[in-house]
């Protein structure tokens, strides 16, 4: 069929496909294909130079029988759950506060966005300095002002505490996004609902539980989902702050790109990580969002 014999709709459809083609091709070649290529690589002993050798499930065996892998899975869960819960709570509190009119609100709005937009690399050193055993204000307050501890210590160097520093840092970095999403939903809640509740004698807390929370249910549900996905794959915010917190992404990075560069094992790790993530998302979407 010649081009000029096509109907208007058909021509339009062809144009539509042409317009979206570059995006689809690029995403296909650089995201979809690599996912499958990665699965393929996970069955090989991969080296950068020379041949790769098929070794079956050897990589997976090495991953699963390594206790440090399970430790990393556990760290990831603590990190992801704690950051998701804390970020959402803080975002909610700030959104409710910012929903009120007050002088200089515009300026405060801009300031709140700063942690979110500033590059991770520019903020980590300030946080490290804050917890620095020699110069940091945190140790100064803990040791010299409040006398809670009797000697200065390096919080970030201890994996147990470093995890919590990473969690607070992630909360600081991400809550502005949560707050922005919640605030825009808050502003659409019909004020009549609150007035009607007041007539029925509802107090502040009652109104919050019976109106605000149900109205926010879906936006909170989506925020938690997005935060969960992002933080599950998070690398920079953890690795640049401290290399003591081995969440899965950092664990994989160390396995695949340092020392003996076990790329095949890295691929297997990534497959496990991705499978875990998809599994968790499916459960969440079914149970919480009830899709």
């Amino acid at each position, binding site marked *: 069929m010649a081009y000029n014999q096509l109907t208007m709709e058909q021509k339009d459809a062809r144009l539509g496909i042409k317009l979206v083609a570059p995006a689809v091709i690029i995403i296909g070649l650089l995201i979809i294909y690599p996912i499958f290529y990665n699965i393929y690589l996970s069955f090989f002993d991969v080296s950068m130079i020379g041949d790769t050798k098929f070794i079956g499930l050897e990589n997976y065996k090495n991953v699963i029988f390594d206790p440090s892998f399970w430790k990393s899975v556990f760290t990831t869960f603590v990190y992801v759950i704690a950051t998701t819960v804390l970020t959402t709570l803080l975002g909610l509190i700030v959104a409710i506060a910012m929903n009120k009119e007050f002088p200089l609100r515009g300026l405060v709005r801009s300031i709140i966005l700063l942690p979110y937009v500033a590059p991770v690399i520019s903020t980590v*050193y*300030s946080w490290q300095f804050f917890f620095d055993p020699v110069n940091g204000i945190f140790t100064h307050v803990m040791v010299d002002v409040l006398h809670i501890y009797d000697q200065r210590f390096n919080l970030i160097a201890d994996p147990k505490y470093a995890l919590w520093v990473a969690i607070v840092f992630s909360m*600081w970095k991400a809550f502005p996004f949560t707050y922005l999403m919640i605030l825009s939903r808050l502003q659409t809640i019909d004020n009549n609902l609150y007035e009607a509740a007041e007539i029925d004698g509802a107090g502040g807390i009652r109104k919050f539980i019976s109106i605000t929370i149900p109205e926010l249910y879906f936006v909170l549900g989506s925020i938690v989902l997005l935060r969960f996905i992002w933080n599950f794959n998070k690398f920079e915010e953890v690795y640049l702050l401290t290399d003591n917190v081995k969440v899965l992404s950092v664990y994989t990075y160390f396995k695949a790109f340092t020392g003996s560069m076990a790329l095949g094992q890295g691929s297997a790790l990534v497959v496990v990580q991705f499978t875990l993530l998809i599994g968790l998302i499916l459960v969440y979407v079914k149970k919480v969002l009830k899709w």
Partner: protein
Amino acid sequence: MVNRKNRLAKNFGFFILIMLIVLFCLFPFIQMLSTSLKYSWDWGNPSLIPIEVNTDAYTEILNINTSGEEVVIEIPASVKKLMEDNPDLTEPQKTAILAKYTDTSDVFPFKTYFLNSLKFSLISSLCALTIAIFGAYSISRMKYRGQKIIQRGVLFVYMVGGILLLIPLYKISVTLGLTGSEGGTTLSLVIIYMVQTLPVCLYMLGNSFRSIPFSIEEAAFIEGYTRFQTIVKIIIPLSFGAIATVFSYAFMIAWNEYLFASVFLKSYINMYTLPISLKALFVSKNAIWDRVSAASLLTAIPVIVLFMLVQRFLSGDSTAGGVKE
């Protein structure tokens, strides 16, 4: 009376809450500025105001030569003696030893790194934006088979974080021979940054285009505009705010990227972007808080300025679900 007191207390509590939020957000930045201006003997002082202001960190990083004279590096006498006492040393070995002392490369070339970052971020975000404008228009405004699948596919791509793609993409680049040359490395990194930002751009722009009333476009068609003309003359100007915001996000993602840069640029020191060079600077030396703070602040400024410019377009609606981290 009681009521008024109550309200005053409430207002005061509210004021404290807002102050705490502001302090929490701002503190790391204030501390960065403060540390960058302090002398090293002042670092342990918990006060944020430097006892004496020191701008050395900035002059060193920005390579501002205040004296205007050529800096002459003295070779220590002990080294000279060592070289004279060891006639076994070959000429190349001697030059190598001398080079260690006369080397000026440990001066942090902030400008080079800044320009590298700018190059990678600008090219990749502009490419992603251009492809995404047409793609997003197609997804949100036109009807054809497969359009719904593409739309959902964009959402799926959100789940794919950088670490999940690092190994296969690196292996592919090595196999294609791209990592062997500076040009090839630049190309791979630009394309990778572009694909990292593309889904975000598609999603956010799609949302924004959908909010433009269809009747405006219909009017344009009646005037005889083609689809292409409509996009360029109607859609793009009408969604200027969204496009500016999306560009800022794309730029920010590339500007902040560490993971891919650290692997791809490992052996090309003069191609380093700011994030990896800052990390390298911090690891390389001791007692470097002032310079790291100054560099951190200077790295943050471009994205902060960009966001202040587009801030008025930022609302939950345009960002809803549409950002990737």
